[in-house]
């Protein structure tokens, strides 16, 4: 060995934590998101208001209908569930947006993504926890309201499929709408902005269609009436398209909202993974 030997100062002993190291997985992220969603008041407020609206409006409408004694014809009493579902969707939208956008608003998202560099895992955990929470709560209360309405109003006995759609179907529809809001919150990263966009998406098509008197816009008006979110909610309760001859009915609105939500979520994943936070 003729080469001069270099003496490097020994590297300082690097620190080893006594806490056992365990690879974190999606289950950990789910536990974390569950802690997050239940430890803020906005969750209690939005879900609390939603429950009050569903119960109050659902039971109120049923009480008025049973008092009026008007003939129900072919309709079952389950259709009254729609009136509670529409305002409930506004609460779900708010909660869905806040679930992710509040992290951007406060800067918490940086802390979160430092604790878990896998951004997809964070978004997946948020989506699952939010979906299951909203689906459970809305299904439970939609079922309660549906049972009460059928018991109070004198109308045709609903079929099994109608029962399923008015309970699990309604819960899934609201939860998917909330998931769409969550995806939009991820894309827009701003609570107020995303909530405004979602409320607009919910109500504006119907309002715009109301004022399309021109014959030239007839086709646009029909499309808006058929595919506006409130119309889809009504369609969920009926076997046949509620407006006109064509359009979704039965389980089809659920498929439509699922498709739109999937597309928005795909965009949210792509953006979250590529953009700086």
């Amino acid at each position: 060995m003729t080469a001069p030997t270099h003496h490097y100062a020994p590297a300082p002993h690097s620190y080893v934590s006594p806490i056992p190291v365990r690879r974190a997985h999606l289950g950990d992220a789910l536990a974390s998101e569950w802690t997050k969603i239940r430890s803020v008041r906005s969750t209690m407020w939005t879900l609390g208001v939603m429950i009050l609206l569903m119960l109050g409006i659902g039971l109120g409408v049923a009480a008025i209908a049973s008092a009026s004694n008007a003939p129900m014809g072919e309709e079952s009493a389950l259709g009254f569930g729609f009136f509670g579902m529409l305002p409930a969707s506004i609460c779900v939208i708010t909660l869905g947006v806040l679930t992710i956008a509040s992290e951007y608003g406060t800067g918490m998202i940086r802390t979160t993504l430092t604790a878990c560099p896998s951004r997809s895992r964070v978004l997946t955990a948020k989506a699952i926890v939010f979906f299951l929470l909203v689906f459970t709560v809305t299904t439970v209360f939609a079922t309660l309201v549906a049972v009460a309405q059928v018991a109070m109003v004198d109308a045709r006995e609903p079929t099994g499929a109608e029962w399923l759609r008015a309970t699990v179907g309604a819960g899934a529809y609201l939860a998917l709408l909330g998931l769409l809001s969550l995806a939009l919150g991820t894309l827009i990263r701003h609570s107020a902005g995303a909530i405004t966009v979602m409320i607009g998406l919910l109500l504006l098509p119907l309002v715009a269609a109301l004022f399309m008197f021109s014959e030239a816009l007839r086709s646009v008006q029909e499309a808006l009436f058929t595919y506006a979110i409130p119309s889809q909610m009504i369609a969920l309760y009926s076997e046949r398209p509620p407006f006109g001859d064509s359009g979704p009915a039965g389980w089809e609105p659920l498929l439509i909202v699922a498709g739109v939500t999937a597309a928005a979520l795909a965009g949210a994943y792509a953006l979250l993974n590529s953009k700086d936070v």
Partner: protein
Amino acid sequence: MIEAVGLTKRYGAKTAVYNLSFQVRPGVVTGFLGPNGSGKSTTMRMILGLDRPSAGHVTIGGHPFRQLPNAPRQVGALLDAKAVHGGRSARSHLLSLAQLAGIPAQRVDEVLGVVGLQDVAKRRSKGFSLGMGQRLGIAAALLGDPQVLLFDEPVNGLDPEGILWVRNLMKKLASEGRTVFVSSHLMSEMALTADHLIVIGRGQLLADMSVTDFISANSADFARVRTPQTEPAQREKLTAALMEAGGQVLSEPDGALRVTGLALPRISDLAHDADVRLWELSPHQASLEEAYMRMTQNAVDYRSTEDQLAHLQAPQQPGQPGYGMPPQQQPMAPEAPQQGWYAPPPPGQNPYAGAPQAPTAPSPYAAPQPAAPSDTPKDAR
């Protein structure tokens, strides 16, 4: 070990960080210094994989942060004390982070104790003071008991007791063999906490050296000499004697003399030989804060010159070739007052060193030009 190579971040036309290369070693506290807006936080975000570098790369222990196995157990960070959901209690906040990283829940109570927030753990963090927020952020960084720690302005908003606590905590963490990277815009704080300094200005590396090296390289020692104010002739006599002996003499606004290049005993001997009485003969060391200010200030000036030119020249050059010229000289003008009496000249490039040769050299009998301000108050009187 954090290693950045050619790290660059551009936001549109603005370059926040440019070609930054440095290493942060374990076992010492490394201070990350720079004025506000110099790119410290951007660099920290890039280290943590939150922002994607426009060019270059940065690794922690050889891996980019997002590819690190068990990242939260290897790296802990305090980026922004306010980066918590205000509606969540301190404990819930930390619990959610611990769960996310697969850290046992009892660790949450441990770190709450370490930062002294155990009594307010159940309170919503919205009501926390900035200091409490900093403590909560430090608790989050310590949660995974990591090998590498990043703190962005950790002493912001802390009271003196809290500052001392953070200082000791950083040193303790480093002594355990961890890599500790602390950003600050306060040189005085870093001089006390850090062993090694990385200084940036306008997103570019200005210095990467140990604190002791930084001090010796950037502090200019001088002696302050004061002669009886009642006898200005004595002052001029002494100035001549000192300059003859090879010293550089500058006049301070209040009439004192700032002497460099001569040891204190020699000044005393010269004064004695010239038969001049001294009212003051005191050693002075320029503060590190001044050295740092000058270093970063120059960087800012240098950069803004370039920007201005690039900005103005592109559209104007074809028609008006002379238009680009004035800005070239413009930045030189404000530099003169910056080399003022209170900031020592940079070592090795003392602009006053050549003063005796310059045409406006202070001859012993002509009052040195910069002394003018000292006359004004007298006249005003």
